[in-house]
């Protein structure tokens, strides 16, 4: 059988500090198909952010390899764009310049100056932020910052979009708006997306598959849940949908019955 689009093979990660080895991830293997939306869920400290950083290439795995389109991943790159938890926009650049920094770097010599400008505006319009192009990050709200962060990541035309708790720092209403925006973008562009989250509803609403991590240290993939709900999905209709509720229950049971977060272990 052919290798999947993105393939994680036997990923181990351990840190060593003062001679004490801490195993964070143990034997994590996962295949992701093109266009899939995957959520990784687990209690805090289970190494899900470490896993995302390994896929991004920002952290090196101790053992095991990540393959993207059959090629091993060994350094960060724009083909695996990251939407960071706290947006990570550069505060001295305007909204436009933040996206342009990425576009100019990735498409230098490929697109003309006019094409690059159009591409920046296209991506800002995609997240409905074209109107704020000349504002600085300090002048816009948290939700808007995260929209720009998503636009910057999308503008790199990544093979895989990695989202590290993208809505974690937002209030519930803004979060719902952004989730809808991401769903729409996923439907329109068909990106492959991997999202870290600790929100059960968010995971079920957005994902094709939910990867549930056991508690660390030595976290593994405990279970992978398929979410067989047709797209486009509507959060209001789903609120009483049986499949949705069943999926939700399955994730909740995994997180709170079988792998309860043990405070004492910290």
């Amino acid at each position, binding site marked *: 059988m052919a290798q999947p689009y993105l393939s994680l093979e036997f990923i181990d990660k351990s840190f060593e500090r003062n001679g004490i080895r801490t195993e964070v991830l143990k034997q994590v293997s996962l295949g992701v198909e093109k266009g899939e939306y995957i959520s990784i869920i687990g209690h805090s400290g289970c190494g899900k952010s470490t896993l995302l950083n390994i896929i991004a290439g920002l952290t090196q795995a101790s053992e095991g390899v990540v393959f993207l389109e059959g090629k091993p991943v060994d350094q960060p790159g724009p083909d695996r764009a990251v939407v960071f938890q706290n947006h*990570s926009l550069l*505060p001295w650049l305007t909204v436009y310049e933040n996206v342009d920094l990425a576009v100019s770097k990735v498409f230098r010599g490929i697109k003309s100056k006019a094409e690059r400008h159009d591409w920046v505006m296209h991506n800002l319009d995609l997240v409905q932020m074209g109107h704020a192009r000349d504002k600085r*990050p300090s002048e816009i709200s948290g939700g808007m910052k995260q929209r720009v962060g998503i636009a910057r990541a999308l503008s790199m035309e990544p093979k895989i979009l990695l989202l590290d708790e993208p809505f974690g720092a937002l209030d519930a209403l803004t979060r719902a708006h952004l989730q809808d925006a991401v769903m729409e973008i996923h439907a329109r562009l068909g990106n492959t997306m991997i999202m870290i989250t600790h929100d059960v509803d968010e995971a079920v609403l957005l994902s094709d598959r939910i990867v549930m991590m056991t508690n660390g240290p030595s976290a593994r993939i405990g279970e992978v849940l398929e979410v067989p709900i047709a797209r486009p999905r509507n959060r209001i209709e789903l609120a009483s949908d049986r499949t949705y509720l069943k999926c939700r229950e399955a994730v909740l049971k995994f997180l709170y019955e079988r792998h309860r977060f043990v405070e004492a272990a910290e």
Partner: protein
Amino acid sequence: MSVTQLNIKEDKKPAAKKASVVAFVPPASSAPYRAKFMKAVRRAALQILPPVIMLAVILLVWQLLCSSPTSSLPSPGRVLHESWELIAHPFHVGQGVDQGMFWHILASLQRVAIGYAIAVVVGVALGALVGQSVWAMRGLDPIFQVLRTVPPLAWLPLSLAAFRDGSPSAIFVIFITAIWPIIINTAVGIRNIPQDYQNVAKVLRLNGFEYFGKIMLPAAAPYIFTGLRIGIGLSWLAIVAAEMLIGGVGIGFFIWDAWNSSLISDIIVALIYVGVVGFFLDRLIAFVGRLVTRGTANA
């Protein structure tokens, strides 16, 4: 019981709010321009008046203290009288060191500008190196920490021996004085660049030059400008002392020359010039810093 009390409070609150709103609106809308103008005048008066009053008080006390004919220092009135030539003709051009105040200040500013400019370039570069590389920090930081405590004037004989000329020696003293705060602040700023920005740079695969120009300098700019501001202040402090020793045209030697000629009033005029110019130099760097770091401070 507690419930009834809560109800009473809530009944009272809206009434109080309403009353205050009604009272507040009319005066604001009736004469907006005049009110605005008066407000601006009042704000300006509040800013300018206190220093003017304090200055008058200080001059008065000084006049009283030094008014006796046996006083060793001149009173403000005597300074005005004795140094009127100097105050009235700042652009006077004469022979040798007999120049107007403007030319002395200009000569000093030129030396500061050259020495400071070199210090900025070298300081930011060295600071970036020390901030970026752990090995450079371990190797260089102890040396910097020792060298920065050497007083500026202690470098002067050494630089005179090396350059065999006054002006380059003074410039070197400015350079060596201004560079330490620039290096140290730049290094701290670069060490404090958030991991997030570094990750953005890594994902975009920015090369060394792009990272330096697009992430490092702007991210560290608030720190760098703190160093630059301290640096310009120290340079201006050092130039006066250095020029006293090297001679020629310059505000430092002017003061020394005035002392040798017992022109105490001239010294006082020169001190006022030095203070005002130093103040404007500091404000200039602060202003440039505000322009450059717009938006960075409140990330």
